[in-house]
């Protein structure tokens, strides 16, 4: 039988599985509600209590909502960050560098984090570029900057690969031209002089006289490349006093083919093949003693798997935090029921069954929990949007987090657990003696 259930489960669409999980997680709350309320309709009385103690009730609802909202917001953010980093690496099928750390070189070549890296020779570049399965081999030469924007030496084909059609302007066509990312604080026609290096240690004036003029702006990519300035790789070599990758007979030429004898080197090469299988074949071909080939997506997946463990911890912590907050609220509720204990005692003196009084107190607590959880989803949506903006601004990686089924599952589990806990104040209220409460 379990095998049959497992087989049936596997045949369900993902959406159906998510809905089924949601219902299953909410089921304990529904069952408890049906059992507690069986035969009674205490809703009018519960509504009256909610209204009578509206400010206290609102405070409890707000506490639960903030707790739920921040919990689900943080978990949604983790997913948004994972998807954002993956989208940012989407255009980088295969990277070839000198042997070293894949993570370090991915951070440098894909996320433009400054690093000193050994260079690949012109012979290696030409071997890659002339490989029969390679459709694009672009040098990615980093090291210079302008203000906070990294200046990257590459080819016009790479700009087209990264941006497709430009938002405005055109591709660079001479050594002194540049294409800027969507969020670079320059305009078409502006000129600038790059600094040697990046960050606080960048040497301003080290490339005096080597000015670039902006001729194009790329479309937004949601990656750190939106804040990058792309120039011909030949220009980067030239401003460093190196040969420009072409022999004397091709002076001023831009882009491949390069002459290996005049190729000063590049720290990374983006390699693209049309088919996934060909990328794997290329990776195999260029994983050797003098080169390292890696998929940024695979490196990211390894990092994401670490995040996955963090996510599980975060989920548990979110539930624990929410349950603790709710336990506090329910403890407060025990005290609150003392406020209307005289009314409950009166109800019982008038002949109301004990179970009806139990149902009233439980329904009141369940209403606070339900309203808090529902409002918490709204708080979660708002928290997710705010945190996404902050993360995007700080990392230059577009994070578009939104609540999804995992967060709704978390809320459903939280509601079921806390609704069960809400039986406690109901029992406490029920066990108060009637006569002393009436005399009080």
């Amino acid at each position, binding site marked *: 039988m379990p095998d049959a259930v497992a087989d049936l489960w596997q045949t369900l669409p993902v959406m159906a599985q998510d809905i089924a999980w949601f219902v299953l997680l909410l089921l304990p709350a529904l069952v408890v509600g049906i059992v507690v309320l069986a035969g009674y309709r205490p809703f009018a009385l519960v509504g009256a209590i909610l209204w009578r103690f509206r400010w206290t009730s609102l405070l409890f609802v707000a506490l639960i909502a903030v707790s739920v909202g921040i919990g689900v917001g943080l978990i949604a953010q983790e997913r948004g960050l994972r*998807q954002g980093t*993956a989208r940012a690496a989407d255009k980088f099928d295969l990277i070839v560098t000198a042997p070293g750390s894949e993570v370090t070189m991915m951070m440098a070549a894909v996320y433009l984090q400054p690093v000193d890296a050994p260079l690949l020779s012109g012979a290696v570049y030409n071997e890659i570029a002339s490989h029969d399965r390679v459709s694009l081999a672009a040098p990615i030469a980093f090291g210079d900057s302008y203000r906070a924007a990294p200046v990257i030496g590459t080819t016009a084909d790479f700009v087209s690969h990264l941006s497709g059609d430009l938002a405005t302007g055109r591709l660079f066509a001479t050594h002194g031209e540049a294409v800027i990312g969507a969020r670079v604080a320059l305009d078409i026609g502006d000129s600038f002089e790059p600094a040697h290096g990046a960050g606080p240690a960048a040497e301003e004036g080290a490339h005096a006289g080597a000015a670039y003029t902006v001729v194009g702006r790329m479309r937004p990519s949601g990656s750190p490349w939106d804040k990058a300035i792309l120039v011909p790789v030949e220009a980067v070599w030239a401003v460093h006093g190196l040969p420009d990758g072409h022999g004397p007979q091709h002076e001023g030429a831009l882009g491949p083919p390069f002459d290996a004898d005049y190729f000063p080197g590049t720290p990374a090469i983006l390699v693209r093949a049309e088919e*996934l299988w060909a990328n*794997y*074949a290329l990776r195999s071909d260029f994983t050797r003693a003098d080169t390292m080939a890696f*998929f940024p*997506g*695979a490196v990211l997946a390894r990092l994401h798997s670490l995040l996955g463990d963090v996510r599980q911890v975060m989920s548990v912590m979110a539930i624990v935090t929410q349950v603790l907050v709710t336990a506090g609220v329910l403890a407060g509720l025990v005290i609150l029921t003392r406020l209307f204990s005289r009314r409950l005692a009166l109800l019982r003196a008038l002949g109301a069954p004990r179970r009806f009084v139990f149902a009233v107190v439980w329904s009141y607590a369940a209403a606070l929990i339900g309203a808090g959880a529902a409002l918490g989803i709204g708080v979660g949506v708002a928290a997710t949007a705010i945190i996404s903006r902050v993360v995007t601004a700080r990392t230059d990686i577009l994070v578009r987090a939104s609540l999804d089924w995992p967060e709704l599952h978390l809320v459903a589990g939280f509601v079921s657990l806390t609704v069960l806990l809400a039986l406690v104040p109901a029992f406490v209220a029920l066990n108060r003696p009637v006569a002393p409460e009436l005399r009080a």
Partner: protein
Amino acid sequence: MPNRLLRLAAIPVLAWAAVSFAADDYDDHVAESNGLRVVHAWARATTGPEALVFADIVNDSGADVLLQGGASGLAASVELVGFELRDGEPAYTPLPAIPVRNRREVVLAPNGLALRLNGLAETLVEGDEIEITIVFDVGPVDVHVEVGASDAAGHSHAGHAH
């Protein structure tokens, strides 16, 4: 004196046992055919109908060969798949045959290339050992696969030279 004789007699027995165990270990970890060597094949324990098999494939056949896929009595089909991130989520996509260059190695590993067993007849449990056939254009190689933990990152003898 008898003790010394017993010790002397024990030496060849222990040596034979060690060699025998080493040979078994080698056979379990290495499969060879047509100049192709498949080392340290392993899979993760699974609860679903699919499992990924990983291994190091070394081509010493003297020519480039094509890795085409596989077959197993435990699964409805075995296919070559490649890892990719789709909207931030890991996914394995079926691939056509890929070349394994002469005197080069292709590594099937998590977040990379793998052989996917589809429609498993039974779930794989940690400690199980299964047999699959990896199919190349030059012929099949029968491989012994060790099943590790559901979160295993490699073969239990990864790093041992064979």
